[in-house]
């Protein structure tokens, strides 16, 4: 950046999600504003330039309705960098897992009745539809990572985001292991870190809200939870609550042929 040249622009959009990521970005706006111009942020401002190109588009939420998809394609077309923020955008989150249990249409009708004018489609992550340049998972995302990703992109660097497991962050904090000491069904070994091992730090089991770590050992995790006495249905439900992709689902299913997906 040189003095006098316009600031790089950002846009912040929400599809189907809880707006947790939007809130994190809003909370960090004062850090961002000296370095970027917010061209669009419908959640936080009323005047938005939705039809102009932007340098970085942050997109929260999964694609769950046809108008989500239309919007996403438009955002992609106008953005130099598209950053998927939060578990919904990166993995599909709980709404995706819900769609695995019964069809999206059946679920929709149960909730809104059969007379609703809205349309629905199975909930999916952004990368099922468009190119996503950076995937920043979280539930919600971590502020430090958000700022680091932004800083990297402003310098035309792709940011370095690891998905080492929560266990690393837990051990770096020197927490006692809740999986071992308390026999809690902690998913830290197969869940991407970034949260700083928040739940285990307070004695609770990690429930996988950041999505899978890089190449998670699903089979071993399900073996170990079963050995601790957790029913396979519960194990599967925990493993997939936050939208883990179908291929992982298939891997676990192969280890336990007797379990029917319908029962989960």
């Amino acid at each position, binding site marked *: 950046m040189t003095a006098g040249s316009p600031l790089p622009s950002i846009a912040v959009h929400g599809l189907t999600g809880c707006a947790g990521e939007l809130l994190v970005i809003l909370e960090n706006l004062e850090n961002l504003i000296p370095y970027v111009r917010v061209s669009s942020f419908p959640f936080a401002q009323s005047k938005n330039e939705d039809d102009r190109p932007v340098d970085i588009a942050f997109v929260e939420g999964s694609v769950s309705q046809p108008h989500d998809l239309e919007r996403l394609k438009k955002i992609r077309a106008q953005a130099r960098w598209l950053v998927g923020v939060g578990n919904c955008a990166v993995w599909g989150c709980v709404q995706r897992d819900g769609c695995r249990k019964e069809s999206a249409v059946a679920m929709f009708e149960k909730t809104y009745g059969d007379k609703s004018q809205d349309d629905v489609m199975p909930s999916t992550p952004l990368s099922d539809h468009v190119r996503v340049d950076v995937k920043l998972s979280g539930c919600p995302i971590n502020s430090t990572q958000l700022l*680091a990703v932004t800083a990297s992109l402003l310098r035309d660097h792709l940011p370095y985001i690891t998905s080492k497991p929560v266990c690393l962050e837990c051990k770096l904090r020197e927490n006692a292991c809740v999986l071992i000491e308390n026999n809690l069904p902690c998913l830290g*070994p197969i869940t991407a870190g970034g949260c700083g091992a928040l739940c285990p730090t307070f004695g609770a089991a990690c429930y996988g809200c950041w999505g899978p770590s890089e190449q998670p050992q699903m089979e071993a995790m399900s073996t170990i939870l*079963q050995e601790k006495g957790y029913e396979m249905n519960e194990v599967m439900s925990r493993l997939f609550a936050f939208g883990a992709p179908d291929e992982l689902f298939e891997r676990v299913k192969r280890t336990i042929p007797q379990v029917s997906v319908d029962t989960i």
Partner: protein
Amino acid sequence: MERSAIFPKSRFQEFFDLMQEFGDVFAPRRVSEKSFSFKQVKNPSEIAFEALRTILPPKKFFFQQRETIISYDENGVRETKPKVSPQVLFGLHPCDLAGLGIMDKVYSASPPDPHYMARRQATLLVGLSCMPDKHCFCKAMGTDSPTSDYDLFLTDIGEDYFVQIHTPIGLQMVGSKKELFSGSDETKSQAFKDFWTTRDQAFTSHFQSENLPAIMDMEWDNKVWDELGNRCLSCGNCTPVCPTCYCFDMVDVASLHAQAGERVREWDSCQFVGFAKVAGDTNFRPGPVDRLKFWYRHKLHGFEDPHGLPTCVGCGRCTESCPAGIDDIVSVVLRLQGKPSVLISDRTTGATNSDCCGSDGGCGSGCGGCGSTHGSTSGGSPGCGGTDTGGHPHA
């Protein structure tokens, strides 16, 4: 140098005050029902004298979990000077002293690591004797007595502590509070000898380590690696808890402010899939079996590098910290040596397991003894491992 002295346990407060004169005191403190951690203590009552192993070993005081190495901005690049203040680590057992000895070798080798060395030089080490539990196997690794790398070492001889003085600064500590210490007499020297004899006989986990490097070479393709590796979660717990795992990752963290940022070093683990990944998406150790075997080899054989030494000190932390129960080093070594041994993976791989363990399929507590009927174990096994598989409760 090696000298000795005695002080009464009843006057430990004075010894504690003496340590505080030389720096902030860090000692094991209880952090949960079963776990301990080296933390600062301001009062002897905070010290968990009963702690055998802390979650993280004392390497964290020198090779910190995460630290900034350099920072940069428009004016240039600057090395970050480590923040160092005098400190005394109290309550290190012989395995931890041996572990620090290995870390010292690695981090002091040319070019020495300035952060590690600065903190190490500002630190006094006061060891403390211990009695082994079922996971301790320092005797097998030859690290069961304090041989070096300490300033003072305290042996619990009942009413008193027997103090071995190893360094000039250790001598200075003792000399600065002469009224607390006395020389040993025949009874107390005998008590010291008796303690170490009793302790030597107290080990329940043991193996002959003389042939370890050769065994690790010849058993590289043993099926035990597949059986254990397939249970591995790749969680990496085994490496931060290891007193001698020294690997790290280095990342540049850019600041939003143009031209500024810092380079950060953070503990890494060879058990993570990205650790051995290189350009072109090639990975030298793509699967958990490759990674587990690699780690075992470093611990029990050593790398083909200038240090070239087995880096396991027998503290048992990995055994206790592995959620999958696969870091049961003693049992693995015995298996590789062709001796009777039971591994956690026998439960899932041995066809005869379910035969002898009944319908629970998982060696529940009712598992009495499979004797030599275990088809999957070499040399027969005393049981299904239902009572001692690394402290992990069974289903």
